[in-house]
């Protein structure tokens, strides 16, 4: 009920309480809508490398938007001859695309398994993720844990020829938000790659 001055007043405490609850709910929804989803401009790309033998550490913290800008500076040669090494096996973009298209609609499954003296490697589909897990069997091998959203793989392979679309893949990664991307632990080095909302590595 409005007063003559246009201010709101209430006939009874229950009406007042209802108004307050609605106001709080509306405010919470507005807050959730604005801060619930981190955009690329809010996300940070982190890489840490620790080399045990040489006692060397590298820490990189970059705004994800900066990485997206920089990705277009990758020389054409690097994306034109799109190869991905999985273990000691080389897969070109065309082969990867065919493999990915064949497993996209499938249930969760292992679609590449590589066993060698130094390590065993398994590439599998798990829900909406491509998972690469490796277990070291000798000093030359490495424990690998890579978890990549399927949308990123789709974007990476979204080309008509034997190239890899790094820019689109990074855009898809930004859309996925924060998360751990890769942890690789070898005999002499540990590499961790992740995205989160914090400017400095934690």
């Amino acid at each position, binding site marked *: 009920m409005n007063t003559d001055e246009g201010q709101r007043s209430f006939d009874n405490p229950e009406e007042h309480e209802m108004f307050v609850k609605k106001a709080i709910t509306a405010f919470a929804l507005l807050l959730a809508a604005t801060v619930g989803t981190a955009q690329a401009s809010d996300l940070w790309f982190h890489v840490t490398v620790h080399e045990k033998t*040489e*006692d*060397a*550490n*590298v*820490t*990189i*913290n*970059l*705004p994800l*938007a*900066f990485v997206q*800008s*920089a990705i*277009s*500076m990758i020389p054409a040669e690097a994306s034109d001859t799109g190869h991905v090494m999985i273990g000691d096996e080389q897969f070109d973009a065309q082969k990867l695309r065919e493999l990915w298209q064949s497993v996209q609609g499938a249930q969760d499954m292992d679609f590449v398994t590589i066993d060698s003296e130094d390590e065993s490697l398994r590439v599998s589909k798990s829900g909406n993720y491509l998972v690469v897990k490796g277990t070291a069997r000798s000093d030359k091998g490495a424990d690998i844990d890579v978890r990549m959203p399927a949308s990123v793989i789709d974007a990476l392979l979204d080309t008509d020829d034997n190239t890899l679309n790094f820019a689109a893949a990074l855009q898809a990664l930004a859309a996925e938000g924060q998360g751990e991307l890769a942890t690789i632990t070898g005999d002499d080095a540990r590499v961790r790659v992740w995205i989160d909302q914090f*400017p*400095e590595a934690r």
Partner: protein
Amino acid sequence: MRIIAKALILTFATGLVILLGTGVALAASVATSGLVLVQVSEAPGTNGGTNLTIPVPASLLHAGISGARYFASDDLRAARQELEPWRDAISQALDELEDCPNVELVRVIDGDEEVVVRKKGRNLLLRVQGNEETVLVSFPMSLARHAFSVLAG
């Protein structure tokens, strides 16, 4: 008062005004354009442990960069052709760096040597620390952007 005395007072007053004016102009240019700082600190026991600090108002460097258009036009033309494919990407990357908060961007530790690149306020800081000396270079991001805009055209 004698004419000579008056002339001396006038000359002194003019000199004082010029000095004060230059100081104020310098302070204003540092406040607006920033300062480039190069600092070298040697470890005690190394050549006497020399410490060297060179501050340069960025506005002087801005002027020098602008002058490069006229003094090195051929070299700039060649540089522009090389940078053309990446001009927009570099410009966008510089924008992102300017907008990001104070943060340590890169840290590399290799034995006793350490390299740190940090964004602090409007400046980019580069610190290289070794056994014998530490070198710190700090410059405004606007200088990097200006240099790039002259380079890329």
